[in-house]
């Protein structure tokens, strides 16, 4: 029995919906158990603004079918460069901030170019980028540099009053702007559609004449920019530069994207999902702190379990989706397309699935693709 198309929930959205529901349930449960206030909800944004910005950049990279492991160290490098220039060389923050943002973007662009033009695995190139950025931090200084610049302290300590006793920080405003921009870029620009297309199937994107090279380099540039911006936010948050800042942040960002329902093989996912992924990570931390009886390492275990559940959920959905396409619907067209796809290097079943989708619905080439291709 099948519901009409407009009533059926898009399978790709299921992980995101589960995430949102999970967040609401967890927050509801937390409110019930520990009497959380509305400010706790806002604190989730205040304390995780940098992670949100990083995770948004990471989501773009994962959507395009890549991965960026250098984000954590780019954040550290940003805090370090800002601190050194402001404290040791007395540059104005108004010069330093655009400079570090440009540096982050350039760093990302460089990695993207290496990945695309030399056909290297994103994983290993960004791993080298991670070493490089972290090492550069230590070359600048191995100590913490505290920032006492008036503008930084002002932004850091200023509270934007909302109604009642509630407040947010400027970091939250930046993060919200980034989220808005990301949603716009992902869903309302040709660049966003290209990212989804490349992640769905790079070869068909290329054959359709999409600018694969430009898009791929831009995606890593965007991620580098987001990391640098997260670094600026992190500098506001910590008021210091340190080479060990944001260690392991790349994993948090990947986890947030996965929990938010972004398909790791690329091509499917939503920015809003990532935002909720970050909120869930933050909430786990908050609940464990509120509880008091649970030790800090339960955070890691909880995140691990959550990651696992969502990864399995993704696999089940992918499996279900491909079975759905092969079993029901229009078998003739699928089979026909599958025969044509047999010459491709991907496995016939996958090509059949992909091609079948394109035949049925020209816009569906962004559908998830199994990772074995």
């Amino acid at each position: 029995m099948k519901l009409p198309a407009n009533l059926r929930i898009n399978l790709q959205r299921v992980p995101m919906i589960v995430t949102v529901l999970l967040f609401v349930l967890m927050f509801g449960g937390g409110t019930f158990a520990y009497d959380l206030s509305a400010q706790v909800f806002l604190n989730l944004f205040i304390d995780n603004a940098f992670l949100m910005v990083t995770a948004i950049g990471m989501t773009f990279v994962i959507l395009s079918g890549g991965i960026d492991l250098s984000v954590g160290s780019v954040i550290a490098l940003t805090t370090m460069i800002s601190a050194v220039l402001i404290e040791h060389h007395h540059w104005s923050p108004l010069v330093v901030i655009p400079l570090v943002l440009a540096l982050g973007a350039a760093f990302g662009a460089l990695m993207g170019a290496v990945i695309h033009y030399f056909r290297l695995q994103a994983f290993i190139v960004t791993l080298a980028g991670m070493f490089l950025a972290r090492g550069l931090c230590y070359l600048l200084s191995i100590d913490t540099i505290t920032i006492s610049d008036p503008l930084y302290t002002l932004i850091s300590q200023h509270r934007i009053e909302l109604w009642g006793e509630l407040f947010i920080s400027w970091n939250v405003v930046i993060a919200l702007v980034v989220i808005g921009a990301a949603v716009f870029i992902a869903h309302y620009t040709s660049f966003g559609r290209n990212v989804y297309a490349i992640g769905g199937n790079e070869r068909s994107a290329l054959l359709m004449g999409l600018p694969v090279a430009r898009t791929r380099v831009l995606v890593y540039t965007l991620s580098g920019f987001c990391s640098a911006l997260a670094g600026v936010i992190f500098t506001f948050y910590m008021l210091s530069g340190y080479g060990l800042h944001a260690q392991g942040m790349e994993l948090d960002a990947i986890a947030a994207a996965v929990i938010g329902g972004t398909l790791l093989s690329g091509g499917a996912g939503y920015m809003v999902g990532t935002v909720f992924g970050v909120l869930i990570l933050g909430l786990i931390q908050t609940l464990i702190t509120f509880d008091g009886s649970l030790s800090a390492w339960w955070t890691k275990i909880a995140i691990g379990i959550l990651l696992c559940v969502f990864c399995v959920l993704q696999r089940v959905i992918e499996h279900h989706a491909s079975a759905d396409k092969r079993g029901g619907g229009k078998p003739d067209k699928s089979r026909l397309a599958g025969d044509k796809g047999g010459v491709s290097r991907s496995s016939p079943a996958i090509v059949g699935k992909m091609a079948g989708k394109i035949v049925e619905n020209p816009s569906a080439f962004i559908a998830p693709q199994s990772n074995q291709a």
Partner: protein
Amino acid sequence: MTKAFRLIEDARRHPLVWPLLTLVVIVLVNVFAHPGFGPQGFLHVGVREGHLFGALVDIANRAAPLMLVSLGMTLVIAVRGIDISVGAVVAISAAVAATLIGGTLVIENGAPVYVSKVPMALALLAAVGAAALCGMWNGALVAGLSMQPIIATLILMVAGRGVAQLLTDGQIITVYYPPFFFLGSGFLFGLPFSLYVVAFVLAVLLCLTRFTALQLFIQSVGINPVASRLAGLNARALTFWVYTFCGVCAGIAGLIISSNVKSADGNNAGLLLELDAILAVTLGGTSLAGGRYSLWGSVIGALIIQTLTYTIYSIGVPPEVNLVVKAIVVFAVCLMQSSAFRVMVFRRGSLTGAEV
């Protein structure tokens, strides 16, 4: 004349030439920095307390855990996988061993005797068993659920550290049981005992891969998993056991590390080891695209990394530079492996076999 030329040409094409050359270059740098065979020289190998000692022995001993992990990682990468949880598995294995052994000082007939909580053999088995379980978990996710390797192992990488801290209750557990220290800092016939462990694992692996069809199977699955499956190979089972083996290797490495520092630290044991292992495997000439691998190459790769670390410390460059140097090495090795790069720079080679 042509014979000699062909010999050189053959040698140039041998997969181990580049790793060996790299190692020789780094060793030469050290030799120039500290020349001679005297006590200050890099090549000095003396005898102290009945065993060999010197910079070379020290490097080999310290590289032992990395070599073990790299061996496991080599096979995982050969079947197109990656295992970034090895650091966490090292921490888990160390935590299990340290918690089970513990060790207390008991005065027996006037002589101090160290007693372990459970027999050491049992504790070691339990530690390696726990590591094997971790490997099986990874294997089940990758082979059973066809999850992307980097993400499947990411789960254990995040959660594993938590589990290790759970086992040690967030403390650094110190071991007071001298027999356990033999594993990481003992000597047998004048050489560090850990080297024998590495040699044993390497020998087992070489026998298994050379004298059975295992090597062929691994390469086949690495080059084309779907074709291997269609050819009747049980690719899933193979992948599963390769990950399990990688876990076991990491477990043994964890034992050596914790025995060397006489304690287990859930937070820091084996930190960033996965990256060093991947680097070692890449340096050894194993293709990250799967299929082509070299066990000896990975051993040499591990030695390169350890010698590099030693060099950076010994020639007085700040140790922080280590990361930058590693980054440059990774970039260089990757670029050399990239056929697109070779075409662009050397104008030779072809793009037909390019890995995407």
